[in-house]
């Protein structure tokens, strides 16, 4: 039994560290650390830098331009990127639709879409949730009706993250309304520029425009855009979910957030001393750090098992729950650390280039909004309650 990385893994970590420390643009790192707005261009700049190094498609096999990394290497990579303040990669294209295309797509689909994902030419978003289909995803109603060489799509998707930037959307649509729930669903790739598509922003409680509603009104989609077989879309969706769940604990992001919390608590004052030296607050920071350590070791155990050929099973549901809870707990403490300075809602200070005088400090504008934004962690990707259902069913066989 050995809890340490192998020498080869440590060497890899140093290589990643050396690269990211130099290659990550300072302005992007600062925006991430301080919680300022990231533009579409910021994301794409970082993606291009990684793509040039050959490190953008960590989850792809080598023959398609991926890294071929082991699960442990992927973990190390994420960890190092987050530690330097790299933005989390927008996963819809590179880590969600791409693995599905690689696994289920036709040669033509692979040849067409994969290079465009690598180059950043296409920005993908996800069309899963609907107003009436959240945790109960299989009850989705968006219809696709075959008409010659096209499907005619009608319906509505919602919670479409960064759909405002996207030129492509992958959708689960119902192709057989008479089949039972999961059976009649298909996986369709749709061009966002198609006539009949309307994107409407949803402003979240932090005032941010991150998610959208997407309406489909008689949208014509070529049959060639079907991935896998008609009515077999649920298989793709399930496969994609297994990809979504690995790394969902977000250890790397939580570690970076904890470091930021400590920095802020070292600068904020109480009773003439840094807040971090206040015994009660310090104990709370200690507690989240301890919990995070426990989640990290658990993650490493699952990674080691996966490395040895095991399939990460329902244990990853435990990590999703614990990981989201700890991230939320850290954001709660960061908000608390700011005291009254968490109250003012001065949106222009969320712009990195904001030229005016800062109300309090460069780090104080974002945390309250971020705290509210991060409530999403326990809701999306299968809510924490759904994860508990999975644990009860898969691990406990209840």
């Amino acid at each position, binding site marked *: 039994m050995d809890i340490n990385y192998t020498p080869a893994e440590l060497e890899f970590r140093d290589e990643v560290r050396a690269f990211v420390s130099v290659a990550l643009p300072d302005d992007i790192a600062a925006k991430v650390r301080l919680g300022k707005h990231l533009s579409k261009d910021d994301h794409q700049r970082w993606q291009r830098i990684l793509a040039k190094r050959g490190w953008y498609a960590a989850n792809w096999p080598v023959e398609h331009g991926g890294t071929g990394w082991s699960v442990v290497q992927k973990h190390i990579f994420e960890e190092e990127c987050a530690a330097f303040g790299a933005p989390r990669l927008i996963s819809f294209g590179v880590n969600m639709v791409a693995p599905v295309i690689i696994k289920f797509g036709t040669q033509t689909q692979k040849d067409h879409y994969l290079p465009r994902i690598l180059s950043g030419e296409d920005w993908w978003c996800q069309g899963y949730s609907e107003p009436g289909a959240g945790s109960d995803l299989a009850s989705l109603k968006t219809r696709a009706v075959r008409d010659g060489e096209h499907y005619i799509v009608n319906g509505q998707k919602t919670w479409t993250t960064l759909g405002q930037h996207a030129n492509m959307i992958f959708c689960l649509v119902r192709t057989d309304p008479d089949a039972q729930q999961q059976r009649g669903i298909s996986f369709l790739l749709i061009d966002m520029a198609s006539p009949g598509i309307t994107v409407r922003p949803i402003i979240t409680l932090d005032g941010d425009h991150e998610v959208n509603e997407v309406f489909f009104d008689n949208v014509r989609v070529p049959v060639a855009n079907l991935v896998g077989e008609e009515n077999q879309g649920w298989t793709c969706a399930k496969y994609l979910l297994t990809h979504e769940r690995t790394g969902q604990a977000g250890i790397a992001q939580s570690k970076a957030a904890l470091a930021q919390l400590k920095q802020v608590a070292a600068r904020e004052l109480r009773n003439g001393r840094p807040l971090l030296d206040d015994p009660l607050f310090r104990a709370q920071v200690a507690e989240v*750090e301890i919990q995070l350590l426990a*989640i990290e070791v658990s993650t490493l155990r699952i990674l080691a098992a996966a490395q040895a050929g095991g399939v990460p099973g329902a244990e990853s549901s435990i990590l999703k729950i614990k990981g989201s809870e700890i991230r939320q707990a850290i954001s709660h403490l960061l908000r608390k650390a700011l005291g009254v300075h968490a109250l003012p809602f001065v949106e222009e200070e969320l712009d990195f280039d904001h030229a005016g005088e800062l109300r309090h400090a460069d780090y104080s504008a974002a945390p309250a909004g971020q705290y509210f934004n991060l409530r999403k962690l326990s809701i999306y990707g299968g809510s924490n309650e759904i994860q508990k259902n999975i644990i009860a069913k898969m691990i406990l066989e209840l």
Partner: protein
Amino acid sequence: MDFTLSEEQQMLQDTVVRLVRDSYSFEQREQFYRSEPGFSWAFWQQLGELGLCSVPIAEAHGGFGGSGVDNLLIMTELGRNLCLEPFLQSQIHGAGLLQQLGNAQQCEALLPRVASGELQLAVALEESQSHYLLHDVQTRAVVVDGGWKLSGHKVVVVGGHSAGLILLSARTAGEPLDEQGISLFLLDPASVGVSRRAYPNIDGPHACDVVLDEVFIAADSLLGEPGRALPALRYQRGRAIAAQCAEAVGGMQEAFRLTLDYLKTRQQFGAPIGKFQVLQHRMADMRGELELASSMAILAACVADEVDSEERSRRLAAAKFVVVRAARFIAEQAIQLHGGIGMTWEYNLAHHAKRLVMLSHQLGDDDHHLQAYAELLKSA
């Protein structure tokens, strides 16, 4: 990274699993509890004969020189069946202190006997006022002709009633809360002036209070340099904590298993109660806590024998904190999910629950270790 066991560790585990399964049923445990030392000498001897008592002790002293992971394997199984023998106190904590502080002569004379299971040790560090602080020592030792004279009062010495020798901290210099001036002595409980009051603890093992009334002990009963024992006391408590975490994980796994079985069998409202989502989610929560606690027990086992460092101390404090919180959660929920039957003496779950809750009262509770961790918190 590798979380698998070696072939030898696998066999060691098999041996302990079988031994405990065969000779430590709940009914047998109840008999051992009611018997004279409050545990089974026969079982203790078996631990010795199979070489298990020697695992934590260095090869140079007749031991096996096992790693923290080897200790974890044994402790987990002892915990799974609620074993009452003071393996942790004697073989890990006591032997560890003796090995770290004892001179060649002391180690040579005693450790082989400890390794074989012939000599049992106990560790007396807590006092009425000390509340887990190892440097809060009021028991005094003064130099007299040919040795030392000890006076004071040690409390809740687990296994102290049956031990052949007790390792005992006493102040040889300084004021009550000073970190300097604390020494460790080997006490023969049969010495004149020693009185012991024995009792069972609420979670099963037996313990005693030790009152020292001007007890004379020979000069060679001192372990290590006078006044300098504290770092070793702290270091060895870390090793004991790692073992305790492993024991707790065994207990948690068993409490969890019993509860899960119960949920699948107990019928109410025409269905097994495990069909109710509110109980399913509670079980999922327990499973999550168990996962984290297991991870921390492994981490603790891996760092327990490392050279002393702040990082080691942090990790051990963190492990104890996580395990204590998880253990209490699982214990309370296990009783709750069982309902009335979980409240009865005749059902082993109740005894697991007691053990899991009370482990926080030994070697420092969650507050103690959270504070320890907070003091060692690294800045960003």
